[in-house]
């Protein structure tokens, strides 16, 4: 037996391009598949979320004005970086009860999904734009634009794939993100943040928190500087209260009920459009 003692990793929140502990000082332990508490995670607070939204809002202008080509490249870069760290992700998933086969499948589909959305970066606009033949002397066109800050509450199934499948379409569409990791299995989300961090995403463009939806969903849904909210959980009561809160500032609400992220239906440009607004511009034609 090797006499070397392993270095254990400290899992923190990912806010504004930094790995920081929760301001609340709270943590929650995570038990491995044998029931042993091996890891502690930050239990993000309302204030952590508030900070994350603040930085996400700051990042919107810069991220949304990147060229589509550049956004695609960054998405692709995330996939590349993830590919290089595949083993770690499989191990982390496996450690918390997902079979090695399933874990491998999940990580590989996640990488492919990121590549999939990287490819959409400069294409969905053409598909969902229109030049409108108005009956007057005007040139008129409609294009998808970002919505702003999207708050995402990740699903518990497929903790890595679910998270990436929700972040990628919102992110590639020019939005910035505050995302709550799977409650049951948040580990890979924070490791995924390291991947993001190594992939040249602007600070604050994606923020990942760990903690409890029972505590945070209320703030995710009621924060007035959040433009859209995604929920995939099975808690219908919580879903209802999220939607009620969201109405306070007319948030775009997406409840992805029972979507199987493992199959091709878990990806499409329509997910990008869920986080897009159509903007129409008019201009006279004359001399």
């Amino acid at each position, binding site marked *: 037996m090797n006499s070397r003692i392993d270095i254990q990793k400290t899992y923190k929140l990912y806010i504004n391009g930094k790995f920081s502990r929760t301001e609340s000082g709270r943590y929650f332990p995570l038990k491995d598949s044998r029931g042993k508490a091996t890891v502690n995670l930050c239990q993000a607070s309302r204030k952590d979320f508030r900070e994350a939204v603040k930085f996400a809002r700051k990042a919107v202008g810069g991220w949304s004005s990147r060229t589509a080509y550049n956004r695609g490249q960054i998405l692709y870069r995330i996939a590349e970086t993830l590919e290089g760290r595949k083993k770690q992700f499989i191990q982390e998933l496996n450690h918390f009860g997902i079979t090695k086969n399933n874990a491998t499948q999940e990580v590989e589909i996640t990488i492919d999904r990121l590549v999939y959305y990287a490819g959409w970066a400069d294409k969905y606009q053409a598909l969902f734009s229109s030049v409108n033949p108005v009956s007057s002397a005007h040139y008129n066109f409609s294009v998808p634009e970002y919505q702003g800050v999207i708050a995402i509450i990740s699903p518990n199934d497929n903790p890595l794939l679910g998270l990436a499948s929700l972040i990628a379409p919102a992110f590639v569409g020019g939005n910035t993100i505050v995302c709550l990791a799977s409650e049951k299995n948040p580990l890979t989300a924070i490791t995924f943040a390291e991947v993001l961090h190594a992939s040249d995403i602007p600070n604050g463009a994606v923020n990942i928190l760990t903690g409890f939806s029972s505590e945070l969903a209320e703030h995710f849904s009621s924060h007035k500087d959040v433009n859209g909210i995604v929920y995939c959980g099975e808690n219908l009561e919580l879903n209802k209260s999220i939607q009620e809160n969201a109405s306070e500032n007319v948030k775009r609400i997406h409840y992805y009920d029972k979507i199987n992220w493992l199959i091709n239906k878990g990806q499409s440009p329509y997910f990008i459009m869920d986080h897009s607004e159509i903007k129409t511009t008019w201009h006279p*034609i004359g*001399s």
Partner: protein
Amino acid sequence: MKANQINIANFRQTPVIDQVGVNERVARLNSRSIKKTSKMAALKLALSMIDLTTLEGMDTPGKVQQLCIKAKHLNHGISDLPHVAAVCVYPSLVKIAKKELNGTSINVASVVTGFPSGQTNFKTRLEEVRYAICEGADEVDMVISRGKFLSGDFQLVFDEIAQTKEECEDIHLKVILETSELSTLDNIRRASEIAMKAGADFIKTSTGKTKCGATQPISLVMLEAIKDFYQKTNKKIGMKPAGGISDSKTAIRYLVMVKEILGNEWLTPTLFRFGASSLANDLLMQITKQQSGAYQSADYFSKD
């Protein structure tokens, strides 16, 4: 900047015009519905603003005499009619017209400066102005050098107008832009400003000798230029659309434009004219229709 480079005005920086916006404004003004007493008043007003015009190579003293008689006696069947504002002829026929209109307040206007193209040397053009005035013209209608304008020599266009005005002294100077050759509304605005700043008493759309005469959008741009000039200088410049205005409906639409852009103060022959030959008869027909209730035939109105 050297002192000698400072121009009186920088004509490269005149206000821009949005063509579609102009067309929309015209369409909206055209939706005004002028009925009953306001229609009758408008018809008579239009009549009083006409420069009854004949500008043909085949014009003869006889033709001009007939036109002058018509100017004095528009129609014997209708009471309370105004007379037209002026008779507009070539310089060589000014004397005839002047004699025929002696004792009336109808002016004689003469086209000058190598009308309609203006393509002769400036000295000759000025000579023509002197000649027309000498023959008795009360008003002269000059043309601008469109070629020079289009090649960007705005200063020269300005200078020519200014020198013509000097020659005119108190004689009313109408400056014809010949808008159909100026290509864009921006150019029409610019030419209007040049003319007004150089001393024009009136700005006029067209010679009537090209394929397109006055249009409402063009006139609107010129009216707005006049308004802006008035607000800056407190000087009222007149407007004369010419060419192609031949029916009452169109004439009333012009009056609506003048009323709503420039205001009632411009609704007078001293500040607004129609350059037209067949408009008078249509106005007379409409006046008769308003009075009698019956639609009229052109056969009942003299063609001179």
